[in-house]
């Protein structure tokens, strides 16, 4: 117990907002990364998708960018729903354990706790995702040369991170309203409707537009990867579309967290 407390200095009232957020993020990271469910679900879903025959014939792709981005498309089909599912119960954890009053008595306010949770728990949940990706890049580099590694890092930053940050932000805010159980059902429904139900089904959907979260536009515009729903719409991705897609995901995530911060601050007795 003493050793745990000695690892970081507890935040004080005199410390700045960022120091408090960093301390909260550190603890949230450690709590989340030690949950077996995080590893089992995220790795399980990626393995489930990769074990099945893939929609694109990846074995015949020789271009590094297309090869890596087609693998990224497969990671993004199931991985983000696992990330959202295991993050959804973090929101009400403190209330469930009746810790809210105790936490309210500490110098760390609601803001650092919320943003610390988003940064720490989000990073922890993305950790198994990132390790799976690193393992795949290692394997691909033995087959196709080390050139796949820098491409893989670029794909991680432009395809995975925006989508995962988007899912993380909503998984840590919407359950304040819905609770984790209903949120998970909504997340799965959204993921299928908003990213996989193409326009041919006759249902209005963001799938195949820059406003989907699966990262098709960066894949198509910058890495020449295969686009499913956008192709169904007859759209070709340009760099501007890819930038719009990433900006939409990041700004929406920021707006969700900022709104939650504002509402929680208003409801706070202090």
């Amino acid at each position, binding site marked *: 117990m003493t050793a745990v407390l000695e690892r970081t200095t507890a935040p004080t009232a005199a410390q700045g907002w960022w120091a408090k957020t960093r301390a909260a993020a550190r603890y949230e990271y450690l709590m989340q990364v030690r*949950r*077996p*469910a995080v590893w*089992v*679900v*995220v790795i*399980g*879903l990626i393995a*489930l*998708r990769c074990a*099945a*025959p893939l*929609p694109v014939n990846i074995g015949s792709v020789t271009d590094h960018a297309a090869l890596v981005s087609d693998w990224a498309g497969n990671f993004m*089909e*199931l991985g983000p*729903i*696992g990330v959202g*599912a*295991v993050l*959804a*119960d973090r929101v009400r*954890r403190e209330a469930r*354990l009746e810790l809210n009053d105790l936490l309210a008595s500490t110098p760390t306010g609601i803001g650092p706790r919320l943003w610390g949770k988003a940064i720490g728990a989000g990073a922890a949940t993305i950790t198994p995702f990132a390790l799976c990706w690193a393992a795949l890049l290692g394997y691909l580099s033995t087959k196709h040369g080390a050139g796949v590694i820098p491409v893989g890092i670029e794909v991680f930053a432009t395809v995975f991170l925006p989508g995962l940050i988007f899912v993380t932000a909503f998984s840590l805010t919407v359950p304040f309203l819905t*609770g*984790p*159980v*209903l949120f*998970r*059902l909504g*997340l*799965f*429904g959204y*993921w*299928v409707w908003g990213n*996989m139900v193409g326009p041919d*089904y*006759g*249902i209005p959907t963001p799938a195949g537009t820059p406003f989907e979260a699966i990262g098709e536009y960066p894949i198509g515009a910058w890495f020449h990867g295969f686009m499913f729903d956008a192709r169904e719409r007859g759209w070709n991705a340009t760099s501007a579309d890819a930038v719009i897609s990433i900006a939409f995901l990041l700004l929406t995530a920021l707006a969700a967290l900022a709104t939650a911060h504002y509402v929680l601050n208003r409801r706070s007795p202090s």
Partner: protein
Amino acid sequence: MNESTWARLHLELRVTGIAAPVTALAAPLAGAVLVTTLYATGAGTHNLDKAAGVVLAGFAPLGAAIAASSVVGRDPGAELVMTATVYRRVLFLRAGLVAAAAAVATLLDAVAFHAMGAWPEGQGTGGYVLVWAPPMIWLVALAMLIAVALRSSAAASGLVGGVWLAQILMDRVIRTNSVLRAQSMFMGVADRVPAHEWNVNRIALPAVGVAAVVVSGVLLRRPERFLGRDAA
């Protein structure tokens, strides 16, 4: 049922809370809104039939599974429950109540869809139950097994959601493999299915579901595994 049985069911429903039944009912309700909207806006027959099939065979079972597995590991006073009664019975009763609510709502959906003419091709009136009940039993039982084995409803939701989505993504692969085909949730959505494949699938799904319930029951013989832990 006598008065004490009703009182017990009422009590367990209240202890279960609002979130699980609402989630179980939300899926068939949202599905009904979707199909009615498509019907009202004059969607093509093929799309309408497919949407009805996906709601009944896919979305309703998913809601029931997520909701039923959420009853695992959320008892703040589990020790007290364990000293007074068999915890396994309590968990199964709560999950059963949640799944039963989903089943009734889905049956109402099926009747309404059939009346609208939004009905999976090749299905007769037997489809009122056979399109959705076997997948629902299968997915709910699988979710309960994962939740009990990993002591985490989050893990159960995530993995069951993944399996559900994988069945949609890998439909073509599943149909070419006889073992996987027997476990396909979405066979009721397919345009035409040979009678023997349909029969095998509709028997295999609940059979695997029953096996998963039995294994969950065996794991729940040691309910103390659920004590003194934060969500895994």
